[in-house]
């Protein structure tokens, strides 16, 4: 199937709307993506026709609901090349997936153990580890970031050492757009017996991701950035690793037998899915995976690359604009953060909104990255399979208007 952005856009009802009298230019997909009708229809169909709780009912609706929920798990497993659907744990989002690992796996850490992250992480891949270190006495260490916005791997062999228990780094940065090479990291980590976790929140929506090829141990990602609903995320883990981990949240659905004194727990993934899960959201994510698969992740990645190349060129024409992160469309995705000299990102975003252009401003939940580049905040434009060159043009026109207002 050939990639036709105009045809794809027809699947996204929201892209028809206007904002302040201008056609919507939605350039905030790294924040959350828009949803195609195919996903919205599945949500509607589930609630209209099949709604019931999962994994506990013998009735027809309960069976339909359970089949759809478990069907979504199987779709997600295939999508990322997991060995089995049982390796897919549904969570609320990436944040919960990372916290799950920090609590469950982290409970076995103690003084002398080390966790390695990086300076380009989202807060969700920093704070859970800081808290874990406070609880256990383990030590947090991190990779630096080069001026070009790449991971500084020059310290790899000392940073990742015999004391390292887990390396958790971002696959694609949510601010710099950098796609991190993971081979060297996984090689070194496994050499010293450490686990590798990747925060794939930005990569799974945009790139073909295969966990077997990556040779990692755990990944986290979230549904709402990949055309799915909010409230559904995924932790993938190697089955023997998940089987070895204790529960995180406790309650219904995750138990085998409960007495007043003691409880035994289900095997993964149920062990990690306490309580009624986000059923419709998981099914919606399954529909999103179907949609992405039909178009093809390689084609989506290629569209991202073309749009990013166009945007990097177009943004370089704006006077006073400085891009944070790679300025060439190599080893980077369709997320571009920048500074406009003399204008605070808050003001940039406000003026862009007057011409219908929706960008993210602030520290993007990655304050250490902002500090690394010496700014309190950044403006970020991020793209997806429905982004057009016309929208990039609207961004550039808007930025020139920003300069006029604050000249």
């Amino acid at each position, binding site marked *: 199937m050939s990639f036709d952005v105009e045809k794809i856009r027809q699947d996204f009802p929201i892209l028809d709307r206007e904002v302040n009298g201008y056609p919507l230019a939605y350039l905030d997909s790294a924040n959350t993506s828009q949803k195609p009708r195919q996903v919205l229809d599945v949500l509607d169909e589930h609630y209209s026709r099949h709604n019931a709780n999962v994994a506990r009912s013998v009735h027809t609706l309960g069976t339909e609901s359970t089949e759809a929920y478990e069907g979504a798990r199987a779709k997600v497993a295939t999508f990322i090349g997991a060995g089995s659907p049982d390796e897919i744990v549904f969570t609320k989002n990436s944040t919960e997936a990372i916290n799950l690992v920090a609590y469950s796996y982290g409970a076995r850490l103690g003084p002398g153990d080390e966790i390695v992250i990086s300076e380009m992480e*989202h807060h969700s891949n920093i704070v859970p580890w800081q808290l874990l270190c406070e609880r256990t006495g383990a030590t947090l260490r991190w990779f630096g970031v080069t001026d070009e916005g790449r991971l500084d791997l020059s310290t790899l062999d000392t940073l990742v050492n015999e004391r390292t228990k887990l390396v958790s780094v971002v696959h694609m940065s949510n601010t710099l757009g950098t796609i991190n090479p993971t081979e060297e990291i996984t090689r070194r980590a496994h050499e010293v017996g450490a686990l590798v976790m990747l925060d794939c929140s930005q990569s799974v929506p945009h790139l073909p991701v295969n966990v077997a090829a990556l040779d990692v141990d755990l990944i986290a990602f979230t549904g709402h950035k990949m055309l799915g609903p909010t409230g559904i995320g995924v932790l993938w883990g190697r089955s023997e690793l998940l089987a070895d981990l204790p529960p995180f949240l406790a309650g219904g659905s995750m138990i085998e037998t409960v007495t007043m004194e003691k409880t035994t727990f289900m095997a993964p993934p149920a062990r990690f899915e306490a309580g009624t899960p986000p059923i419709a959201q998981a099914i919606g994510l399954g529909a999103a995976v179907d949609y992405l698969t039909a178009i093809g992740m390689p084609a989506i990645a290629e569209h991202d690359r073309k749009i990013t190349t166009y945007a990097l060129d177009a943004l370089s024409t704006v006077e006073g604009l400085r891009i944070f992160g790679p300025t060439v469309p190599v080893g980077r995705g369709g997320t571009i953060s920048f500074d406009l000299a003399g204008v*605070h990102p*808050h*003001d940039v975003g*406000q003026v862009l909104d*007057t011409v219908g252009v929706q960008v993210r401003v*602030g520290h993007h939940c990655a304050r250490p990255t*902002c500090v690394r580049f010496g700014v*309190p905040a950044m403006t970020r434009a991020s793209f997806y399979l429905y982004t057009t060159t016309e929208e990039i043009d609207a961004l550039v026109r808007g930025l020139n208007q920003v300069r006029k*207002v604050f000249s």
Partner: protein
Amino acid sequence: MTQPQLDQLYQEIILDHYKHPHGRGLREPYEAEAHHVNPTCGDEVTLRVHMHDGAVQDVSYDGMGCSISQAAASVLYDLVHGRRLDEALRRQEAFVTLMSSKGQAEPDEELLEDAVAFAGVAKYPARVKCALLPWMAFKDAAARAAASGADEGGAAVKRPGSSGTVTAAANLGSEG
């Protein structure tokens, strides 16, 4: 937001204060200092209050932030320095009321002077917290400066513990 609305938000007065801020920079003496941050956008302000004989002798500040927060600090300086504390706090309250008005209030120009330009900002919930950042820091520092008792005797000693950091996160919805 349309172009006329944009002009209303970024009124000339506001852009003027942003480009040519009044009273900017941290000065001594002072009795209390407050550091407030806005976690959603990374804006920060450090603000000092110097009291003398029951009056706000000086307000000095430094920080980084958007045009709205920086202009609000400049306007604040004009409105409160040299005023008696109760008068300064009356203006502080009037500004907070204006910013809570969702753009419906008719601001008292005699009391608020240049700050009336912020009436347009009140229509944008995402920006109200920018405008309030320095004013909340002032309220905090002024209260502690007054409590220090230094204003009565005119002493200008920075007391240990009279500096505080506050995150302006209350009901503003942090993004992470």
